[in-house]
Protein backbone atom coordinates (compact mmCIF):
# COMPACT_ATOMS: atom_id res chain seq x y z
CA UNK A 1 0.00 0.00 0.00
CA UNK A 2 1.31 3.44 -0.94
CA UNK A 3 -0.19 6.53 0.67
CA UNK A 4 0.39 10.05 -0.59
CA UNK A 5 -0.36 12.37 2.30
CA UNK A 6 -0.75 15.90 0.97
CA UNK A 7 2.45 15.77 -1.02
CA UNK A 8 3.85 18.91 -2.62
CA UNK A 9 6.99 19.30 -4.70
CA UNK A 10 8.50 22.66 -5.52
CA UNK A 11 11.58 22.63 -7.72
CA UNK A 12 14.23 25.31 -7.59
CA UNK A 13 12.94 28.47 -9.18
CA UNK A 14 9.46 28.06 -7.72
CA UNK A 15 8.18 25.42 -10.12
CA UNK A 16 5.32 23.71 -8.30
CA UNK A 17 5.44 20.31 -10.01
CA UNK A 18 3.16 18.50 -7.55
CA UNK A 19 0.53 20.37 -5.58
CA UNK A 20 -1.02 18.92 -2.42
CA UNK A 21 -1.63 15.44 -3.78
CA UNK A 22 -3.41 12.91 -1.56
CA UNK A 23 -4.48 9.40 -2.48
CA UNK A 24 -3.78 5.78 -1.67
CA UNK A 25 -2.79 2.86 -3.88
CA UNK A 26 -4.26 -0.31 -2.41
CA UNK A 27 -2.16 -3.44 -2.06
CA UNK A 28 -2.12 -5.47 -5.28
CA UNK A 29 -3.59 -2.68 -7.40
CA UNK A 30 -2.23 -0.98 -10.47
CA UNK A 31 -2.78 2.75 -10.11
CA UNK A 32 -2.17 4.70 -13.30
CA UNK A 33 -0.92 8.28 -13.04
CA UNK A 34 -2.38 9.91 -16.11
CA UNK A 35 -2.19 13.41 -17.51
CA UNK A 36 -0.68 15.69 -20.14
CA UNK A 37 3.06 16.29 -20.43
CA UNK A 38 4.53 18.29 -17.56
CA UNK A 39 1.66 17.68 -15.13
CA UNK A 40 4.01 16.14 -12.57
CA UNK A 41 3.56 12.37 -13.04
CA UNK A 42 7.25 11.52 -13.14
CA UNK A 43 8.00 13.84 -10.24
CA UNK A 44 5.32 12.20 -8.12
CA UNK A 45 6.63 8.74 -8.98
CA UNK A 46 10.25 9.62 -8.25
CA UNK A 47 9.40 10.95 -4.83
CA UNK A 48 8.33 7.45 -3.81
CA UNK A 49 11.85 6.00 -4.06
CA UNK A 50 13.35 9.35 -3.13
CA UNK A 51 14.97 10.11 -6.45
CA UNK A 52 13.35 13.48 -5.79
CA UNK A 53 12.97 15.04 -2.37
CA UNK A 54 9.54 15.83 -0.97
CA UNK A 55 8.96 19.52 -0.29
CA UNK A 56 5.88 19.07 1.87
CA UNK A 57 3.77 16.17 3.05
CA UNK A 58 4.65 12.52 3.39
CA UNK A 59 4.67 9.32 1.36
CA UNK A 60 4.02 6.14 3.34
CA UNK A 61 4.71 2.64 2.14
CA UNK A 62 2.75 0.09 4.15
CA UNK A 63 2.25 2.71 6.81
CA UNK A 64 5.91 3.72 7.11
CA UNK A 65 7.09 7.11 5.93
CA UNK A 66 9.71 6.66 3.23
CA UNK A 67 11.74 9.36 4.95
CA UNK A 68 12.37 7.07 7.91
CA UNK A 69 13.82 4.30 5.76
CA UNK A 70 17.41 4.06 4.57
CA UNK A 71 17.49 5.44 1.02
CA UNK A 72 19.52 2.59 -0.44
CA UNK A 73 17.40 -0.11 1.23
CA UNK A 74 14.23 1.67 0.21
CA UNK A 75 15.26 1.74 -3.44
CA UNK A 76 16.32 -1.90 -3.44
CA UNK A 77 12.91 -2.84 -2.09
CA UNK A 78 11.07 -1.03 -4.87
CA UNK A 79 11.00 -2.23 -8.49
CA UNK A 80 11.77 0.56 -10.95
CA UNK A 81 11.10 0.50 -14.69
CA UNK A 82 11.59 3.48 -17.00
CA UNK A 83 10.69 4.30 -20.58
CA UNK A 84 14.25 4.23 -21.89
CA UNK A 85 14.67 0.86 -20.09
CA UNK A 86 18.03 1.96 -18.63
CA UNK A 87 19.61 -1.46 -19.06
CA UNK A 88 23.33 -1.44 -18.30
CA UNK A 89 25.07 -1.75 -21.70
CA UNK A 90 28.23 -3.19 -20.14
CA UNK A 91 26.43 -6.08 -18.45
CA UNK A 92 24.99 -9.26 -19.93
CA UNK A 93 21.27 -9.85 -19.76
CA UNK A 94 21.77 -12.17 -16.80
CA UNK A 95 23.87 -9.58 -14.96
CA UNK A 96 21.27 -6.94 -15.71
CA UNK A 97 18.39 -9.01 -14.43
CA UNK A 98 20.21 -10.03 -11.26
CA UNK A 99 21.75 -6.66 -10.47
CA UNK A 100 19.67 -6.01 -7.35
CA UNK A 101 20.18 -9.57 -6.02
CA UNK A 102 23.92 -8.97 -6.53
CA UNK A 103 23.73 -5.75 -4.55
CA UNK A 104 21.88 -7.66 -1.86
CA UNK A 105 24.62 -10.29 -1.81
CA UNK A 106 22.65 -13.34 -2.95
CA UNK A 107 24.74 -16.40 -3.75
CA UNK A 108 25.37 -17.55 -7.31
CA UNK A 109 22.95 -20.45 -7.31
CA UNK A 110 20.06 -18.41 -5.96
CA UNK A 111 20.70 -15.69 -8.52
CA UNK A 112 20.83 -18.20 -11.38
CA UNK A 113 17.52 -19.74 -10.30
CA UNK A 114 15.91 -16.34 -9.97
CA UNK A 115 17.17 -15.39 -13.43
CA UNK A 116 15.50 -18.46 -14.93
CA UNK A 117 12.20 -17.86 -13.17
CA UNK A 118 12.08 -14.21 -14.19
CA UNK A 119 13.01 -14.73 -17.83
CA UNK A 120 10.33 -17.37 -18.16
CA UNK A 121 7.87 -15.02 -16.51
CA UNK A 122 8.55 -12.28 -19.07
CA UNK A 123 8.57 -14.74 -21.96
CA UNK A 124 12.26 -14.84 -22.91
CA UNK A 125 14.39 -17.98 -23.18
CA UNK A 126 16.83 -17.86 -20.22
CA UNK A 127 19.59 -19.89 -21.88
CA UNK A 128 19.45 -18.03 -25.17
CA UNK A 129 19.83 -14.59 -23.63
CA UNK A 130 22.10 -15.25 -20.65
CA UNK A 131 25.32 -14.15 -22.33
CA UNK A 132 23.82 -11.62 -24.72
CA UNK A 133 24.06 -7.85 -24.27
CA UNK A 134 21.26 -5.28 -24.26
CA UNK A 135 22.19 -3.76 -27.64
CA UNK A 136 21.61 -7.14 -29.28
CA UNK A 137 17.93 -7.14 -28.26
CA UNK A 138 14.91 -5.48 -29.84
CA UNK A 139 13.15 -2.64 -28.01
CA UNK A 140 10.38 -4.95 -26.86
CA UNK A 141 12.82 -7.56 -25.58
CA UNK A 142 14.83 -4.90 -23.76
CA UNK A 143 11.70 -3.65 -22.06
CA UNK A 144 10.85 -7.21 -20.96
CA UNK A 145 14.32 -7.49 -19.46
CA UNK A 146 13.71 -4.14 -17.74
CA UNK A 147 10.55 -5.56 -16.16
CA UNK A 148 12.37 -8.75 -15.12
CA UNK A 149 15.13 -6.69 -13.53
CA UNK A 150 12.62 -4.64 -11.56
CA UNK A 151 10.97 -7.82 -10.26
CA UNK A 152 14.28 -9.50 -9.37
CA UNK A 153 14.32 -9.10 -5.61
CA UNK A 154 10.55 -9.64 -5.46
CA UNK A 155 9.76 -6.10 -4.31
CA UNK A 156 6.23 -5.57 -3.02
CA UNK A 157 6.02 -2.19 -4.75
CA UNK A 158 6.78 -1.29 -8.38
CA UNK A 159 7.21 2.10 -10.00
CA UNK A 160 6.82 2.15 -13.76
CA UNK A 161 7.36 5.36 -15.73
CA UNK A 162 5.84 4.94 -19.19
CA UNK A 163 7.43 1.50 -19.44
CA UNK A 164 5.94 0.78 -22.85
CA UNK A 165 5.96 4.36 -24.12
CA UNK A 166 8.84 4.01 -26.56
CA UNK A 167 7.49 0.92 -28.33
CA UNK A 168 5.52 0.62 -31.54
CA UNK A 169 1.74 0.21 -31.03
CA UNK A 170 1.66 -3.52 -31.76
CA UNK A 171 4.55 -4.40 -29.45
CA UNK A 172 3.18 -2.04 -26.82
CA UNK A 173 -0.19 -3.76 -26.82
CA UNK A 174 1.43 -7.18 -26.59
CA UNK A 175 3.59 -6.13 -23.65
CA UNK A 176 0.59 -4.59 -21.92
CA UNK A 177 -1.32 -7.86 -22.27
CA UNK A 178 1.65 -9.86 -21.03
CA UNK A 179 2.16 -7.53 -18.13
CA UNK A 180 -1.46 -7.89 -17.05
CA UNK A 181 -0.86 -11.67 -17.01
CA UNK A 182 2.33 -11.23 -15.00
CA UNK A 183 0.56 -8.99 -12.51
CA UNK A 184 -2.08 -11.69 -11.98
CA UNK A 185 0.75 -13.93 -10.81
CA UNK A 186 2.89 -11.50 -8.85
CA UNK A 187 0.23 -9.19 -7.41
CA UNK A 188 2.46 -6.18 -6.84
CA UNK A 189 1.34 -2.77 -5.72
CA UNK A 190 2.08 -0.71 -8.80
CA UNK A 191 2.28 2.97 -9.61
CA UNK A 192 2.22 3.24 -13.39
CA UNK A 193 2.78 6.50 -15.30
CA UNK A 194 1.09 6.96 -18.65
CA UNK A 195 -0.17 9.78 -20.82
CA UNK A 196 -2.28 7.45 -22.91
CA UNK A 197 -5.90 7.13 -21.81
CA UNK A 198 -6.31 3.79 -23.60
CA UNK A 199 -3.34 2.35 -21.75
CA UNK A 200 -4.66 3.72 -18.46
CA UNK A 201 -8.07 2.13 -18.99
CA UNK A 202 -6.49 -1.16 -19.90
CA UNK A 203 -3.88 -1.39 -17.16
CA UNK A 204 -5.37 0.44 -14.20
CA UNK A 205 -7.56 -0.70 -11.34
CA UNK A 206 -7.57 2.98 -10.50
CA UNK A 207 -6.63 6.09 -12.45
CA UNK A 208 -5.28 9.32 -10.99
CA UNK A 209 -5.82 11.99 -13.61
CA UNK A 210 -3.57 15.01 -13.04
CA UNK A 211 -3.21 18.52 -14.36
CA UNK A 212 -0.60 21.10 -13.33
CA UNK A 213 0.42 19.03 -10.33
CA UNK A 214 -3.10 18.63 -8.97
CA UNK A 215 -5.40 15.63 -8.98
CA UNK A 216 -8.41 16.18 -11.24
CA UNK A 217 -10.04 12.84 -10.56
CA UNK A 218 -9.11 9.63 -8.73
CA UNK A 219 -11.43 6.80 -9.73
CA UNK A 220 -11.83 3.50 -11.46
CA UNK A 221 -11.43 3.61 -15.24
CA UNK A 222 -15.13 3.14 -15.86
CA UNK A 223 -16.10 5.88 -13.38
CA UNK A 224 -13.71 8.26 -15.12
CA UNK A 225 -15.22 7.38 -18.48
CA UNK A 226 -18.83 7.41 -17.34
CA UNK A 227 -18.73 10.16 -14.73
CA UNK A 228 -15.98 12.61 -15.61
CA UNK A 229 -15.85 15.04 -12.70
CA UNK A 230 -15.17 18.18 -14.67
CA UNK A 231 -14.62 19.72 -18.05
CA UNK A 232 -10.90 18.90 -18.08
CA UNK A 233 -11.49 15.22 -17.40
CA UNK A 234 -14.12 14.82 -20.06
CA UNK A 235 -11.97 16.64 -22.57
CA UNK A 236 -8.95 14.53 -21.67
CA UNK A 237 -10.95 11.34 -21.91
CA UNK A 238 -12.14 12.45 -25.34
CA UNK A 239 -15.39 12.52 -27.29
CA UNK A 240 -15.02 8.85 -28.09
CA UNK A 241 -15.14 7.88 -24.45
CA UNK A 242 -18.28 5.89 -25.17
CA UNK A 243 -16.29 3.71 -27.53
CA UNK A 244 -13.37 3.55 -25.10
CA UNK A 245 -15.74 2.44 -22.41
CA UNK A 246 -16.61 -0.53 -24.60
CA UNK A 247 -13.21 -2.03 -23.97
CA UNK A 248 -14.15 -2.36 -20.32
CA UNK A 249 -17.13 -4.57 -21.13
CA UNK A 250 -17.30 -8.04 -22.60
CA UNK A 251 -19.82 -9.82 -24.75
CA UNK A 252 -20.84 -11.60 -21.57
CA UNK A 253 -21.84 -8.29 -19.96
CA UNK A 254 -23.95 -7.50 -23.00
CA UNK A 255 -25.56 -10.93 -22.84
CA UNK A 256 -26.51 -10.33 -19.20
CA UNK A 257 -28.05 -6.93 -19.90
CA UNK A 258 -29.87 -7.40 -23.18
CA UNK A 259 -29.29 -10.99 -24.28
CA UNK A 260 -27.88 -12.34 -27.54
CA UNK A 261 -29.57 -12.67 -30.93
CA UNK A 262 -30.66 -15.97 -32.49
CA UNK A 263 -28.34 -17.80 -34.82
CA UNK A 264 -29.52 -17.47 -38.39
CA UNK A 265 -28.09 -20.56 -40.15
CA UNK A 266 -28.65 -19.13 -43.64
CA UNK A 267 -26.00 -16.43 -43.27
CA UNK A 268 -22.65 -17.65 -44.56
CA UNK A 269 -19.10 -16.61 -43.66
CA UNK A 270 -19.92 -15.27 -40.22
CA UNK A 271 -17.00 -14.79 -37.92
CA UNK A 272 -17.05 -15.93 -34.33
CA UNK A 273 -16.01 -14.15 -31.14
CA UNK A 274 -15.37 -15.53 -27.69
CA UNK A 275 -17.87 -14.60 -24.98
CA UNK A 276 -15.03 -13.02 -22.97
CA UNK A 277 -13.97 -10.78 -25.87
CA UNK A 278 -14.31 -7.07 -25.07
CA UNK A 279 -16.97 -5.12 -26.91
CA UNK A 280 -14.55 -2.70 -28.54
CA UNK A 281 -12.85 -5.49 -30.43
CA UNK A 282 -16.16 -7.17 -31.13
CA UNK A 283 -17.39 -3.96 -32.69
CA UNK A 284 -14.39 -3.73 -34.96
CA UNK A 285 -14.88 -7.36 -36.01
CA UNK A 286 -18.46 -6.49 -36.88
CA UNK A 287 -17.41 -3.49 -38.90
CA UNK A 288 -14.74 -5.34 -40.79
CA UNK A 289 -16.88 -8.07 -42.27
CA UNK A 290 -19.68 -8.36 -44.80
CA UNK A 291 -22.19 -10.13 -42.59
CA UNK A 292 -23.95 -7.99 -40.07
CA UNK A 293 -23.67 -10.42 -37.22
CA UNK A 294 -20.99 -12.43 -35.46
CA UNK A 295 -21.50 -15.72 -33.68
CA UNK A 296 -20.65 -15.80 -29.99
CA UNK A 297 -18.97 -18.93 -28.67
CA UNK A 298 -17.98 -20.02 -25.18
CA UNK A 299 -14.56 -21.28 -24.20
CA UNK A 300 -15.31 -24.71 -25.64
CA UNK A 301 -16.37 -23.37 -29.02
CA UNK A 302 -20.05 -23.94 -28.30
CA UNK A 303 -22.23 -21.44 -30.20
CA UNK A 304 -24.27 -19.32 -27.81
CA UNK A 305 -25.95 -16.76 -30.07
CA UNK A 306 -25.15 -13.74 -32.18
CA UNK A 307 -24.28 -10.08 -31.74
CA UNK A 308 -25.04 -7.29 -34.22
CA UNK A 309 -24.01 -3.65 -34.35
CA UNK A 310 -27.49 -2.87 -33.17
CA UNK A 311 -26.93 -4.92 -30.01
CA UNK A 312 -23.75 -3.04 -29.21
CA UNK A 313 -25.47 0.26 -29.78
CA UNK A 314 -28.34 -0.61 -27.48
CA UNK A 315 -25.94 -1.78 -24.80
CA UNK A 316 -23.89 1.40 -25.16
CA UNK A 317 -26.98 3.48 -24.80
CA UNK A 318 -28.02 1.63 -21.71
CA UNK A 319 -24.60 1.70 -20.08
CA UNK A 320 -23.40 5.16 -20.86
CA UNK A 321 -26.19 7.46 -21.92
CA UNK A 322 -28.40 6.39 -19.07
CA UNK A 323 -25.83 5.95 -16.33
CA UNK A 324 -23.82 9.07 -17.15
CA UNK A 325 -24.96 12.55 -16.25
CA UNK A 326 -26.10 14.82 -19.05
CA UNK A 327 -22.93 16.01 -20.71
CA UNK A 328 -22.41 19.68 -21.38
CA UNK A 329 -20.14 19.16 -24.33
CA UNK A 330 -21.43 19.41 -27.88
Amino acid at each position, binding site marked *: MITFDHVTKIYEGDVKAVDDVAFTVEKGDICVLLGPSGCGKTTLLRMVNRLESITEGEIRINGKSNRDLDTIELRRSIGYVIQ*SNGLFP*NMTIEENVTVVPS*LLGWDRKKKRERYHTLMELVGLDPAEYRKRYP*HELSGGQQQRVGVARALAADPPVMLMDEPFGALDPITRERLQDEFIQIQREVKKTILFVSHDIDEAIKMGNKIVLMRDGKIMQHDTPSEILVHPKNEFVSRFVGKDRAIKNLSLHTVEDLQKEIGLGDINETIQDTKTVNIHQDLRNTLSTLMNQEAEQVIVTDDHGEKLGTVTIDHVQRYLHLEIREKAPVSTEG
Partner: protein
Amino acid sequence: MTWFQEWIEFLNVNLPLIVDLTVEHVALVGLAILVAILIGVPLGIYLTTNEYLASTILQAASIMMTIPSIALFGVMIPLLSIINKGIGFVPAFIALVLYSQLPIIRNTYTAIKNVDPGVRDAAIGLGMKTVQRLFRVEIPNAMPVIMAGIRTAVVMNIGIGVIAAFIGAGGLGVMIVQGIVRTDQYLIVTGSIAVSLLAIIADVLLGSVQKWLTPKGLETNS
Protein backbone atom coordinates in the same frame (compact mmCIF):
# COMPACT_ATOMS: atom_id res chain seq x y z
CA MET B 1 80.55 1.73 -48.54
CA THR B 2 77.13 3.14 -49.28
CA TRP B 3 75.35 5.42 -46.84
CA PHE B 4 73.00 2.64 -45.94
CA GLN B 5 75.75 0.14 -45.19
CA GLU B 6 77.53 2.68 -43.05
CA TRP B 7 74.33 3.29 -41.15
CA ILE B 8 73.93 -0.45 -40.46
CA GLU B 9 77.48 -0.47 -39.21
CA PHE B 10 76.65 2.49 -36.97
CA LEU B 11 73.63 0.66 -35.57
CA ASN B 12 75.76 -2.38 -34.85
CA VAL B 13 78.32 -0.44 -32.89
CA ASN B 14 75.82 1.71 -31.01
CA LEU B 15 73.17 -0.88 -30.24
CA PRO B 16 73.80 -0.90 -26.46
CA LEU B 17 73.50 2.91 -26.39
CA ILE B 18 70.28 2.84 -28.42
CA VAL B 19 68.79 0.26 -26.06
CA ASP B 20 69.83 2.26 -23.00
CA LEU B 21 68.33 5.46 -24.32
CA THR B 22 65.13 3.70 -25.34
CA VAL B 23 64.76 2.24 -21.84
CA GLU B 24 65.33 5.70 -20.38
CA HIS B 25 62.74 7.18 -22.70
CA VAL B 26 60.17 4.51 -21.91
CA ALA B 27 60.82 4.86 -18.17
CA LEU B 28 60.38 8.62 -18.26
CA VAL B 29 57.20 8.56 -20.35
CA GLY B 30 55.80 5.49 -18.57
CA LEU B 31 56.28 6.91 -15.10
CA ALA B 32 54.86 10.28 -16.13
CA ILE B 33 51.77 8.62 -17.67
CA LEU B 34 51.23 6.46 -14.62
CA VAL B 35 51.22 9.48 -12.34
CA ALA B 36 49.14 11.43 -14.86
CA ILE B 37 46.49 8.67 -14.84
CA LEU B 38 46.45 8.54 -11.06
CA ILE B 39 45.79 12.28 -10.98
CA GLY B 40 43.76 12.80 -14.16
CA VAL B 41 41.21 9.97 -14.00
CA PRO B 42 40.00 10.60 -10.43
CA LEU B 43 40.04 14.34 -11.08
CA GLY B 44 38.03 13.92 -14.28
CA ILE B 45 35.49 11.81 -12.40
CA TYR B 46 35.32 14.29 -9.54
CA LEU B 47 34.78 17.20 -11.95
CA THR B 48 31.55 15.62 -13.20
CA THR B 49 30.11 16.51 -9.79
CA ASN B 50 31.37 20.10 -9.78
CA GLU B 51 30.43 22.10 -12.87
CA TYR B 52 32.15 25.30 -11.84
CA LEU B 53 35.49 23.71 -11.05
CA ALA B 54 35.20 21.61 -14.22
CA SER B 55 35.20 24.55 -16.60
CA THR B 56 38.04 26.24 -14.70
CA ILE B 57 40.29 23.19 -14.65
CA LEU B 58 39.56 22.13 -18.23
CA GLN B 59 40.41 25.64 -19.37
CA ALA B 60 43.64 25.67 -17.37
CA ALA B 61 44.59 22.31 -18.88
CA SER B 62 43.87 23.63 -22.39
CA ILE B 63 46.11 26.63 -21.82
CA MET B 64 48.80 24.28 -20.50
CA MET B 65 48.70 22.45 -23.83
CA THR B 66 49.33 25.58 -25.84
CA ILE B 67 52.61 26.36 -24.04
CA PRO B 68 55.47 25.12 -26.25
CA SER B 69 57.33 22.35 -24.47
CA ILE B 70 60.69 24.05 -24.77
CA ALA B 71 59.26 27.13 -23.03
CA LEU B 72 57.78 25.02 -20.26
CA PHE B 73 61.13 23.38 -19.64
CA GLY B 74 62.69 26.85 -19.65
CA VAL B 75 60.31 28.05 -16.98
CA MET B 76 60.87 25.03 -14.81
CA ILE B 77 64.65 25.30 -14.69
CA PRO B 78 64.77 28.41 -12.47
CA LEU B 79 61.78 27.27 -10.42
CA LEU B 80 63.21 23.84 -9.63
CA SER B 81 66.71 25.21 -9.15
CA ILE B 82 65.47 26.35 -5.76
CA ILE B 83 65.44 22.70 -4.66
CA ASN B 84 68.50 22.01 -6.73
CA LYS B 85 66.58 19.98 -9.33
CA GLY B 86 66.66 22.51 -12.15
CA ILE B 87 67.75 20.06 -14.79
CA GLY B 88 67.47 16.33 -15.35
CA PHE B 89 64.67 13.88 -14.73
CA VAL B 90 62.46 15.89 -12.37
CA PRO B 91 61.55 18.88 -14.59
CA ALA B 92 61.04 16.60 -17.59
CA PHE B 93 58.82 14.31 -15.56
CA ILE B 94 56.72 17.20 -14.23
CA ALA B 95 56.30 18.68 -17.70
CA LEU B 96 55.13 15.36 -19.14
CA VAL B 97 52.64 14.87 -16.31
CA LEU B 98 51.25 18.35 -16.92
CA TYR B 99 50.95 17.83 -20.68
CA SER B 100 49.08 14.55 -20.18
CA GLN B 101 46.45 16.11 -17.98
CA LEU B 102 44.28 17.66 -20.69
CA PRO B 103 43.57 14.55 -22.78
CA ILE B 104 43.15 12.38 -19.69
CA ILE B 105 40.99 14.72 -17.62
CA ARG B 106 38.92 15.88 -20.56
CA ASN B 107 38.22 12.41 -21.89
CA THR B 108 37.39 11.03 -18.45
CA TYR B 109 35.12 13.95 -17.68
CA THR B 110 33.32 13.81 -21.03
CA ALA B 111 32.97 10.02 -20.97
CA ILE B 112 31.43 9.91 -17.50
CA LYS B 113 29.17 12.87 -18.36
CA ASN B 114 28.02 11.10 -21.50
CA VAL B 115 26.81 7.95 -19.77
CA ASP B 116 23.15 7.65 -20.80
CA PRO B 117 21.06 9.52 -18.19
CA GLY B 118 18.52 6.68 -18.26
CA VAL B 119 21.27 4.23 -17.36
CA ARG B 120 22.50 6.41 -14.51
CA ASP B 121 18.94 6.96 -13.32
CA ALA B 122 18.33 3.20 -13.29
CA ALA B 123 21.55 2.62 -11.33
CA ILE B 124 20.46 5.08 -8.65
CA GLY B 125 16.83 3.98 -8.70
CA LEU B 126 17.74 0.33 -8.21
CA GLY B 127 19.69 1.24 -5.10
CA MET B 128 23.36 1.38 -6.07
CA LYS B 129 25.57 3.42 -3.78
CA THR B 130 27.72 6.11 -5.41
CA VAL B 131 30.84 3.96 -5.50
CA GLN B 132 28.92 0.94 -6.82
CA ARG B 133 27.41 3.07 -9.55
CA LEU B 134 30.83 4.43 -10.46
CA PHE B 135 32.59 1.08 -10.65
CA ARG B 136 29.79 -1.13 -11.94
CA VAL B 137 28.20 1.22 -14.43
CA GLU B 138 29.83 4.57 -15.12
CA ILE B 139 33.52 3.67 -15.43
CA PRO B 140 32.95 0.50 -17.51
CA ASN B 141 30.76 2.44 -19.92
CA ALA B 142 33.24 5.33 -20.08
CA MET B 143 36.26 3.04 -20.49
CA PRO B 144 36.76 3.27 -24.28
CA VAL B 145 36.85 7.06 -24.21
CA ILE B 146 39.08 7.23 -21.12
CA MET B 147 41.52 4.82 -22.76
CA ALA B 148 41.50 6.88 -25.96
CA GLY B 149 42.59 9.88 -23.88
CA ILE B 150 45.40 7.91 -22.27
CA ARG B 151 46.51 6.70 -25.69
CA THR B 152 46.69 10.25 -27.00
CA ALA B 153 48.69 11.33 -23.96
CA VAL B 154 51.20 8.49 -24.36
CA VAL B 155 51.87 9.11 -28.04
CA MET B 156 52.15 12.83 -27.44
CA ASN B 157 54.54 12.33 -24.51
CA ILE B 158 56.83 10.08 -26.47
CA GLY B 159 57.29 13.00 -28.85
CA ILE B 160 57.65 15.67 -26.18
CA GLY B 161 60.07 13.38 -24.33
CA VAL B 162 62.59 14.11 -27.09
CA ILE B 163 62.79 17.73 -25.99
CA ALA B 164 63.58 16.56 -22.46
CA ALA B 165 67.07 15.76 -23.67
CA PHE B 166 67.76 19.49 -23.83
CA ILE B 167 67.53 19.70 -20.06
CA GLY B 168 69.51 16.58 -19.45
CA ALA B 169 66.72 14.12 -18.79
CA GLY B 170 68.15 11.56 -21.17
CA GLY B 171 66.10 9.40 -23.52
CA LEU B 172 66.16 9.08 -27.27
CA GLY B 173 66.27 12.86 -27.62
CA VAL B 174 69.91 12.66 -26.63
CA MET B 175 70.77 11.11 -30.01
CA ILE B 176 68.93 13.79 -31.90
CA VAL B 177 70.36 16.67 -29.87
CA GLN B 178 73.90 15.36 -30.18
CA GLY B 179 73.36 14.62 -33.83
CA ILE B 180 72.42 18.25 -34.38
CA VAL B 181 75.36 19.54 -32.35
CA ARG B 182 77.86 17.28 -34.11
CA THR B 183 76.07 17.39 -37.47
CA ASP B 184 76.02 13.61 -37.41
CA GLN B 185 73.18 12.45 -39.63
CA TYR B 186 73.37 8.85 -38.43
CA LEU B 187 72.59 9.93 -34.91
CA ILE B 188 69.71 12.13 -36.05
CA VAL B 189 68.17 9.51 -38.31
CA THR B 190 68.52 6.72 -35.79
CA GLY B 191 67.04 8.81 -32.97
CA SER B 192 64.12 9.95 -35.09
CA ILE B 193 63.29 6.48 -36.34
CA ALA B 194 63.55 5.03 -32.84
CA VAL B 195 61.15 7.64 -31.44
CA SER B 196 58.66 7.09 -34.26
CA LEU B 197 58.78 3.32 -33.87
CA LEU B 198 58.31 3.66 -30.14
CA ALA B 199 55.22 5.83 -30.66
CA ILE B 200 53.72 3.43 -33.19
CA ILE B 201 54.37 0.37 -31.01
CA ALA B 202 52.92 2.09 -27.93
CA ASP B 203 49.82 3.08 -29.87
CA VAL B 204 49.24 -0.43 -31.17
CA LEU B 205 49.80 -1.99 -27.74
CA LEU B 206 47.49 0.47 -26.04
CA GLY B 207 44.95 -0.18 -28.77
CA SER B 208 44.77 -3.81 -27.70
CA VAL B 209 44.64 -2.83 -24.03
CA GLN B 210 41.76 -0.51 -24.88
CA LYS B 211 39.94 -3.30 -26.65
CA TRP B 212 40.57 -5.66 -23.76
CA LEU B 213 39.27 -3.17 -21.19
CA THR B 214 36.16 -2.27 -23.20
CA PRO B 215 33.14 -4.22 -21.93
CA LYS B 216 31.91 -6.65 -24.56
CA GLY B 217 28.45 -5.13 -24.61
CA LEU B 218 29.83 -1.83 -25.89
CA GLU B 219 31.84 -3.21 -28.74
CA THR B 220 29.54 -2.31 -31.60
CA ASN B 221 29.12 1.26 -30.40
CA SER B 222 32.77 2.13 -30.18
